[in-house]
């Protein structure tokens, strides 16, 4: 099939997964093993020297994980990928590969709260300093760049509020500054949006969410777009300088347009260790096989629920880019023609008490702190994840007392709406 380009749904099922060469197994086997025997001493030497493709130890490579890696790389249009233990581990390895102590990076201030924590506190202790910019004011990215800036980080659709980021505009700023653009594509998934087409150099995922899609496995993926010229500068020594770990090898020279994924693996994953369990990789892979069907249904359901809520007398506002009056509707038209995703927030006129009342009275929605499940999920951030903050701080974080976040599942839309309807009647 090489002479024509397979479509998305075909890649979601086949990319990376040829039948098992030794057993003929058609589904990807779970290679639940720590280690792999060498063919002989020469083979071992080739593997340790990165001269041959192959498996040594599951912390570095595993055949089940490799299928997941190649599949996500194919779906995103990247050259290679690396699967790791979580979305947070993916971000850790990306920045470890790019930054040294004292370096800076620019990040959108509209991010998943866990990423804001990771950048603000944990990364700070490595000497990696974040400068925040506002995706609603593109020029703020340009202003945040200094001679120490090594990367820009954004989310394509930002959690939790249904913010659509102008990826192409920020990519132009990154290119002008000569730094790679990292895009977290977790909420959109490659079905709704391929940020590499809009200039992303690196894509990261929490595979825990829509890729796996069934709320059963934590995992993360780093995708190398193969677009950044690491040899053009000496600012990324992991890629452009001889590595003492590998007898002086220059990774960008040896591995060309997939060197970033290799560097994250052989320098980051090898030494920092957040390997993905092959069992989790198997479950995430199985989820990805139905990604096209699920994302279409997630988006279709979310559109219906958003339209229902915006017309409800107890609802103050709805932030969903699929709604015609939404501030991100035009960007959604440009970047998300297949649907605006399934995670969004809305506000209740009854404030804090109404929020607590809603999550206490839903029956079908699960009250929990995750997104991207087949099941519909609900959370009232002010009484849970953002409980410790002052009211003012809650509002700045998009978690004001009236805010409710939904992750719409793939149940029947009528049942999802009926559940919200009966619960809203009680608040």
């Amino acid at each position: 099939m090489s002479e024509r380009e397979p479509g998305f749904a075909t890649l979601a099922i086949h990319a990376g997964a040829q039948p098992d060469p030794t057993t003929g197994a058609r589904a990807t086997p779970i290679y639940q093993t720590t280690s792999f025997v060498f063919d002989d001493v020469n083979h071992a030497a080739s593997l340790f020297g990165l001269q041959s493709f192959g498996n040594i130890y599951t912390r570095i490579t595993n055949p089940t994980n490799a299928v997941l890696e190649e599949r996500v790389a194919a779906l995103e249009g990247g050259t290679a990928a690396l699967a790791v233990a979580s979305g947070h581990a993916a971000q850790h390895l990306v920045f470890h590969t790019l930054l040294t102590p004292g370096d800076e990076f620019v990040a959108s201030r509209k991010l998943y709260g866990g990423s804001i924590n990771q950048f603000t506190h944990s990364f700070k202790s490595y000497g990696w300093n974040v400068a925040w910019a506002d995706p609603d004011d593109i020029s703020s990215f340009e202003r945040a760049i200094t001679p120490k800036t090594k990367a820009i980080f954004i989310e394509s659709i930002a959690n939790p509020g249904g913010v659509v980021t102008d990826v192409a505009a920020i990519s132009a700023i990154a290119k002008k500054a000569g730094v790679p653009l990292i895009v977290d594509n977790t909420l959109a998934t490659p079905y709704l949006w391929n940020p590499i087409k809009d200039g992303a150099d690196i894509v990261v995922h929490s595979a825990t969410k829509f890729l796996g899609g069934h709320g059963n496995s934590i995992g993360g993926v780093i995708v190398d777009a193969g677009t950044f010229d690491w040899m053009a500068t000496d600012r990324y020594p992991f890629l452009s300088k001889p590595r003492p770990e590998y007898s002086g090898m220059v990774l960008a020279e040896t591995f060309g347009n997939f060197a970033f994924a290799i560097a994250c693996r052989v320098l980051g994953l090898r030494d920092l260790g957040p390997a993905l369990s092959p069992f989790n990789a198997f479950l995430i892979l199985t989820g990805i096989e139905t990604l096209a069907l699920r994302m279409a249904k997630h988006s279709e359901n979310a559109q219906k629920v958003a339209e229902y809520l915006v017309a409800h007398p107890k609802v103050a506002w709805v932030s969903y880019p699929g709604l015609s009056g939404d501030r991100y509707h035009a960007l959604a038209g440009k970047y998300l023609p297949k649907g605006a995703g399934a995670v969004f927030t809305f506000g209740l006129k009854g404030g804090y008490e109404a929020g607590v009342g809603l999550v206490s009275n839903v029956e079908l929605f699960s009250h929990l702190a995750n997104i991207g499940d087949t099941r519909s999920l609900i959370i009232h951030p002010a009484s849970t994840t953002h409980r410790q903050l002052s009211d003012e701080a809650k509002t700045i974080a998009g978690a004001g007392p009236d805010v409710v976040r939904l992750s719409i599942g793939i149940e029947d839309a009528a049942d999802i709406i009926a559940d919200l309807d009966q619960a809203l009647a009680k608040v």
Partner: protein
Amino acid sequence: MNHDRYDDAFIRSVLEGVSTIAIVGASANAARPSYFVMKYLAERGYRVFPVNPGQAGKEVAGLTFYGTLKDIPEPIDMVDVFRAPEHVPAVLDEVLALVPLPKVIWMQLGVRNDEAATRAEAAGMQVVMNRCPKIEYGRLSGEIGWTGVNSRTISARRPKLLGGGVQRLSISRGPQGQK
């Protein structure tokens, strides 16, 4: 022939159709890309002859270096060129002087010289430019996916083990259902 893109079927036929490969510009340094390619192709069953005047007579990884192409004592099917594009015409002159004439001249990733390609094709040779035979072999066998690299190929046919161990695949695929 169009050298901006190659069908997988063409690359597969090139790599299946050769058994002896000379690598011009091969390095004896184990950290260099040309060393990787020479060792990998040798491990995949090709008979590899590294060519580098500075290393003539030296034996590295079980392979003997030759000073020039014409010093290689047997017929060469393919010449893989690890030299900058401006040096390709001189290499091609040496290739065209070989008897018998090699079937393929392959210029490495980053190396392209269209004028030389036209001359080689006029002499009846097949030409591949700006590609790496290790990457192409790894893509077409599926081995490259073991490192998370996008092979840009999909197949429901069972890959064949190459032999000599379990972590080596052939680029050939039998018909559906073949043992």
